[in-house]
């Protein structure tokens, strides 16, 4: 028989635990299942009965890599339910905190998780033996992102300073300005990262993706905006669930999303944001993207590394702008309304890995009655499987070991966060 099964039991250098199971029969790929065996943690269940003010701290614990994203999307949702708006310097501080998370998370993925693939090395520690300068600089850049989060959020993992309506305490101008010289260093390091990633040799492959990202009239969207795709979606966040839906693939402890119409896949994250918001890049980010010849819409998923690097430049530039224009606001948060009859609120923001949607139903007593959370990795899962199916069908001549490596590399393009999707990959290729 020519049938075979290939199994990756534990995909490494991703966040969380998952496996991949592939069945190949008579030279055709039958099944590609990304199996997420990360233990379920039931956030949406135990959020019921908690006070709405607790959601930012509780949902941050879904993911230690992108806690700020959870805090921002949950705050957006609660503020939407309460009918309050966070604007001006408080909004700018939120964007600064989020820039910190991007500046930490993108270099983590580029250098520590993905770059070793391009040198056929197992990890960044080995990479540091070959190229100590690059790894040292990467860690320096990542650290500056963490410095922003530590100053503004109290700590880099599960910051403590975010609350519905704003912050517990806003920093003084002087405190923020201490970051300024380090951000100049970060800008140079981030630009160097763009040049470095642009010189790597990428596999030649392109897909006709539907990219979905937020779009904001004034900025490269991060905190909020309209949901826009390159194939005609243009909706406010309140229409998210009318347009996209989640279903539970029985082989995984996570939920996958599709577009309701046609049940097709879509792709969120840096490639999508860049395709939709390229005109909103900050000046140096736009300039360096041009300098390295980055195409206006990147359809090669491996080249996402370059896009992450460009976004890092953007985040550093924006952090500098926010700090320079900062004036400490009189109040650190917007008060919730004195009377609240309860209601539903939804919120979305751009986690480093893509859009993160939250919806809550809150009672008049302020307790959460229902919670729904859709993380970026759940939204990308179907598209990841399609990329893998295509890769495998074109690579049937490879040995199991080669194919396993190729699949793992493809999965890392998505920087999947399985903790978020509850959610890790284990590769299992069956050739029947």
């Amino acid at each position, binding site marked *: 028989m020519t049938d075979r099964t290939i199994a990756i039991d534990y995909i490494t250098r991703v966040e969380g635990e998952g496996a991949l199971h592939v069945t190949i029969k008579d030279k055709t790929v039958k099944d590609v299942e990304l199996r997420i065996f990360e233990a379920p943690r039931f956030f949406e269940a135990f959020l019921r009965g908690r006070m709405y003010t607790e959601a930012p701290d509780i949902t941050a614990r879904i993911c230690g890599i992108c806690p700020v994203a959870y805090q921002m999307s949950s705050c957006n949702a609660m503020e939407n339910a309460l009918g309050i708006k966070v604007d001006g310097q408080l909004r700018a501080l939120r964007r600064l905190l989020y820039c910190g998370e991007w500046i930490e998370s993108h270099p983590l993925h580029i250098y520590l998780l993905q770059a070793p693939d391009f040198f056929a090395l197992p990890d960044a520690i080995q990479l540091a033996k070959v190229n100590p300068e690059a790894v040292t600089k990467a860690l320096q850049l990542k650290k500056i992102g*963490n410095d922003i989060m530590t100053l503004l959020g109290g700590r880099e993992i599960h910051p403590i*300073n975010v609350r519905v309506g704003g912050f517990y*305490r806003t920093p003084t101008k002087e405190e923020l300005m201490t970051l300024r010289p380090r951000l100049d260093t970060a800008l140079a390091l981030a630009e160097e990262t763009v040049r470095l990633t642009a010189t790597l040799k990428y596999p030649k492959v392109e897909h006709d993706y539907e990219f979905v990202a937020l779009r904001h009239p004034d900025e490269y969207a991060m905190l909020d905006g309209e949901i826009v795709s390159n194939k005609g979606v243009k909706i406010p966040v309140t229409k998210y669930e009318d347009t996209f839906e989640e279903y539970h693939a029985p082989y995984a402890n996570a939920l996958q999303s599709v577009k309701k119409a046609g049940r097709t896949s879509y792709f969120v994250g840096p490639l999508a944001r860049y395709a939709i918001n390229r005109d909103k890049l900050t000046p140096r980010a736009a300039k360096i993207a041009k300098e390295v010849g980055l195409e206006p819409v990147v359809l090669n998923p491996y080249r996402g590394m370059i896009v992450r690097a460009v976004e890092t430049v953007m985040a550093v530039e924006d952090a500098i702008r926010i700090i320079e224009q900062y004036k400490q606001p009189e109040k650190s948060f917007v008060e919730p309304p004195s009377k609240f009859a309860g209601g539903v609120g939804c919120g979305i923001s751009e986690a480093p890995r893509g859009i993160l949607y939250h919806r809550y139903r809150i009672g008049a007593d302020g307790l959460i009655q229902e919670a729904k959370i859709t993380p970026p990795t759940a939204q990308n899962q179907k598209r990841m499987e399609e990329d893998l199916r295509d890769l495998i069908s074109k690579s049937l001549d490879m040995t199991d070991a080669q194919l396993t490596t190729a699949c793992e590399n493809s999965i890392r393009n998505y920087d999947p966060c399985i903790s978020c999707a509850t959610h890790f990959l284990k590769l299992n290729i069956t050739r029947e």
Partner: protein
Amino acid sequence: MAAKPKLGVWKFASCDGCQLSILDCEDELLAVAGALDIVDFREATSAIAPGPYDISLVEGSVTTPEDQQRIKEIRAQSKLVIAIGACATAGGIQGLKNFADVEDYKKAVYQHPEVVKTLTTSTSIKENVTVDLELKGCPISKYQLLEAVSSLLYKRAPNLPTETVCVECKRKGNVCVMVGYGTPCMGPVTQTGCGALCPSYNRGCYGCFGPQDTPNTASISKDFAAKGMTPAAIKRVFRTFNANALEFKAAADAAEPGRAPK
């Protein structure tokens, strides 16, 4: 020179944040990697070598039948097991399911609850196997992690304070948020380690490092009630990231004594 100690980093039910703390030691990461032989750390490396391990860092809580078995195997292969973080030391936020009906939870989240394998409880590592050292916190302090690892390398006792957040907060010179602003604060009953962060940012401590050795939870609950917190609200503050730590569990049960602890 003696061989470098072999390190394994293991994940159970968790957010990955505590193991990320290792990668967040940007200034020390390459030194740590030089002093130890990292043989299994799947979030960071594809190079996986078999045990036994000199040191195992275990993140996360035990929530599935497979994990009950896996932690036993890790223990059998490890000279020292260090449980890191609130999930590994107290069952974590997912330990809230210990007070609920898990079938109901499965139905609330998944369309195919029947395929989701989970135990009715989320338990700490020490409830499953013998643990040699615990680092508390949600997340852990990376400085405490570096202290624990270097103490083992130099064969000395780790310096991990067990005083309350309150003591550290006083030393920092913060205005007490309870006395000064009437803000409920878990600092008097919570173990230090975070740097008294929340009160330094004008908010009350929310107990993410779990109970200190001898916490007077009855007294603080009385004070919370005097500040206008309802019994249900007092119960909630003890039932967060360390809900199954004994002292916090008892305090939550005592907050609403009329209701049977479910």
